[in-house]
């Protein structure tokens, strides 16, 4: 009897711990707990997966090669500035290939002078250019290329995290997966499209000057429909002067609100980028039109002052991801380190623009390789149906066990409930995420739990048939079923562990509940029900067993 009471206390203890662990999953109950209990327990319980509560799961890759190109482009810009500063009349400075800069010059005497400038660009080496007297080629060092690629993904991660924080989503997940992928999970997002746009946008803000001297400018159409940009670019191919490009401003018709584009001839040279911003806020203009006011950091402010001072009465384009938002004429030197981005925005667009500007640009465009979006309605549907079907299935099993095994069936049903409570407690303590496949895993575990009891009961029946008394029959049944139960559970556990280690997403969720369930099953089947049998039939003289 001593042994029995020891095990019954264990049973009570396990149940109590499980129930306590479940409480964080049911917030009203959790809030009612005393302070010290809350301090011990995790503050959240089981969370529902995206398939159950709706949300976004996206996997993205950073375009690393583009990140390298962008870095080289920047060096091209600084080299141009440096050449102007030192008054070296080079003909052209261009990025050639993904990681080369080619400088061309008329006067062969300049070569030595330009070669010396590489001291200011330690990340480049000069490639052998003895063959040409009028040009030289620099190449980005291999180590630097690797560093840019490596840091591109970390930067992207950081930037996306910032943006999502500012967008405001409860419990977002933003993490790196493997070498070059980023996983973003936004549970319960109400406006999936807006959230996705916010994440995807490269948000590279650039200030560029319009080319107002070229005659080509006059040939450009005044406006074109949206989506016809490529045709215009093609039409002017070859005509656009060296160092210029055609960019388009997005505009809306006043009456119909239809979107169209205005082509501009813009100098490729970047005067200033969004790097030097310290803040971006939405403001409302005098006609109730929202705009974004930006504040430069001190270095950016000085730079902006110099650029505007040098270009009074000229037009400057505010370019975001190669689309012009506005192209105002600079009226006077702008001091104070502030500027405005105007354009035709809705308040929401202006809001999102401010967010991406504050969070900074992505080092390179993102490629989305996987995108799962579940609307909140499907989640609701799935829960309702899944829960209903599971409850119904559970009821069928409970009834069947009682009909077939009588009182012993009731004990098996108790084990089933114990199983569920323990499983929920364990999932809750691990703050696991419950997905639909996870629920399927629970259903399977219940099936296996029932199977353990069937194995034991059939064995007990055999013992009884062979003429044994009640107590020895129970003990014999448990003993003989033990090995079988362990073998069958271990084999399933092997599958579960393999799924957990190598499975992804939904499969992992399934594996977690399966593995936990199997462990708990072993306990309830071998300790849980046995204690009850022992308590009920501990007297040697019991003559009949309800089985």
């Amino acid at each position, binding site marked *: 009897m001593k042994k029995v009471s020891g095990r019954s206390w264990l049973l009570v203890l396990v149940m109590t711990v499980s129930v306590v662990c479940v409480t964080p999953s049911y917030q009203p109950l959790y809030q009612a707990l005393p302070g010290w209990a809350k301090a011990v327990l995790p503050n959240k319980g089981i969370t529902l997966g995206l398939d159950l509560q709706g949300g976004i799961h996206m996997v993205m890759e950073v375009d690393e090669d583009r990140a390298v190109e962008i870095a080289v482009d920047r060096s091209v810009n600084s080299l141009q500035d440096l050449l102007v500063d030192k008054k070296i009349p080079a003909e052209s400075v261009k990025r050639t290939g993904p990681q080369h800069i080619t400088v061309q010059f008329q006067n062969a005497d300049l070569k030595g002078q330009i070669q010396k400038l590489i001291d200011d660009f330690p990340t480049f080496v000069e490639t052998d250019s003895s063959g040409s007297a009028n040009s030289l080629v620099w190449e980005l060092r291999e180590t630097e290329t690797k560093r840019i690629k490596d840091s591109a993904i970390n930067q992207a991660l950081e930037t996306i995290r910032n943006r999502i924080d500012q967008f405001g989503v409860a419990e977002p997940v933003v993490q790196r997966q493997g070498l070059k992928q980023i996983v973003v999970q936004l549970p319960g997002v109400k406006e999936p*499209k807006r959230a996705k746009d916010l994440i995807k946008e490269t948000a590279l803000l650039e200030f560029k000057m319009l080319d107002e001297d070229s005659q080509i400018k006059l040939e450009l159409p005044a406006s074109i429909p949206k989506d016809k940009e490529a045709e215009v670019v093609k039409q002017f191919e070859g005509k656009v002067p060296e160092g210029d490009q055609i960019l388009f401003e997005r505009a809306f018709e006043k009456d119909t609100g239809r979107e169209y584009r205005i082509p501009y001839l813009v100098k490729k040279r970047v005067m200033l980028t969004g790097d030097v911003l310290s803040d971006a806020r939405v403001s409302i203009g005098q006609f109730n039109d929202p705009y974004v006011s930006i504040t430069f950091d001190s270095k950016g402010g000085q730079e902006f002052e110099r650029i505007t001072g040098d270009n009074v009465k000229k037009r400057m384009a505010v370019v975001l991801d190669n689309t012009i938002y506005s192209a105002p004429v600079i009226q006077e030197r702008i001091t104070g380190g502030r500027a405005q981005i105007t354009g035709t925005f809705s308040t929401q667009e202006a809001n999102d623009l401010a967010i991406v500007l504050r969070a900074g640009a992505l080092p390179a465009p993102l*490629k*989305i*390789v*996987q*995108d*799962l*979006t*579940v*609307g909140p*309605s*499907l989640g609701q*549907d*799935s829960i309702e*149906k*899944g829960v209903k*079907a*599971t409850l119904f*299935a559970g009821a*069928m*099993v409970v009834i*069947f066990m009682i*009909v*077939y095994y*009588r009182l012993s069936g009731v004990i098996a049903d108790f084990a089933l409930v114990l199983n569920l409570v323990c499983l929920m407690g364990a999932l809750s303590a691990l703050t696991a995420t419950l997905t*639909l*496949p996870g629920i*399927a895993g629970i259903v*399977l575990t*219940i*099936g*296996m739990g*029932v*199977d353990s009891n*069937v*194995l034991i009961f*059939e064995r007990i*029946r055999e013992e009884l*048939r062979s003429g044994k008394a009640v107590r020895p029959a129970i003990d014999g049944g448990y003993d*003989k079923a033990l090995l*079988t139960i362990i*073998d*069958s559970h*271990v*084999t*399933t556990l*092997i*599958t*579960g*562990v*393999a*799924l957990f*280690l*190598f*499975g*992804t997403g*939904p*499969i992992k969720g399934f594996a977690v509940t*399966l593995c936990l369930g199997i462990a708990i099953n072993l306990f309830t089947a071998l300790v849980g029900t046995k204690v009850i049998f022992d308590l009920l039939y501990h007297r040697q003289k019991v003559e009949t067993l309800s*089985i």
Partner: protein
Amino acid sequence: MLEILGKTNVDFMGKRNIAFIFSGIMVLIGLVAVVQIARGAANLGIDFAGGTAVQLKFDQAIRIDEARKALESNGVGDAELQEFGQDNKLLVRVKASTTIEKKTAERVVAIFTKEFSNNKFVVDSTTEIGPTIGKKLQEDAIIAIVISFAGIILYIAARFELRFGVAAALATFHDVLAVIGAFYILDKEITLLIVTALLTLAGYSLTDTVVVFDRIRENLKLRRRDTEEAMINGAVNQVLSRTIVTSLTVVLVLIPLTLAGGEVLHDFSLALLWGVIFGTYSSVFVASPLLLLWPGARGRLLKRS
């Protein structure tokens, strides 16, 4: 006591030739299905093949041929449509070749907004998967399957002997192949969730086989004089009521899940349901007779124990 079966004494081993023929056909169909899947000719879900799936829930019933026409006239011709009748739900799938950058999901939604302006809908879910991810998932799934099978064979070989491990693994392969074959014939989509179901039923079918094997091992210690065939037959008969009661309870769970669990769970539960039926059959008619086929095994069954 209520019993479905009393003490039985069916000669299962004697019927092994019929069982082998039946199972041979099932396995053959399964193998054809696997080859077709590997060739990309089967109905592979977009999570493996890459592509786009959009599920819409309409206010009123929508006719599938009208939906197809609307998609075709707007340049989305290669879509597969599936409806979930009672909820006015429509699933549109556009496979492979299209990449995510083309924004297929947005296009599909735009087309339905335009063409069915008087039948409002909400977007239940969209799934877009690039071909590279599909490849990765495929590889992951195969690794998981291989590892779990290797682990299981090793475990059973250690607990019993090699022949039992191999027989159990073959019987399990048989069950998995039978379900894959059935899915292939019915042209059902093989998704990640179905692979999960296949692995689950592998675990289940193994449990069933292990229970029978355990009894065979136990009997070996008691009845040394019986022939192998009689011994195996006896073991199968002894655990028969357990086999049937357990399968029955699992089927009791799976039927409501299949019928009313919602579209996400339907195929998953269906695969498990078939798996349970095949698994029960195979532990009786396939796994145990396979033990007799092992070369040179006659009379040497489990000498060690």
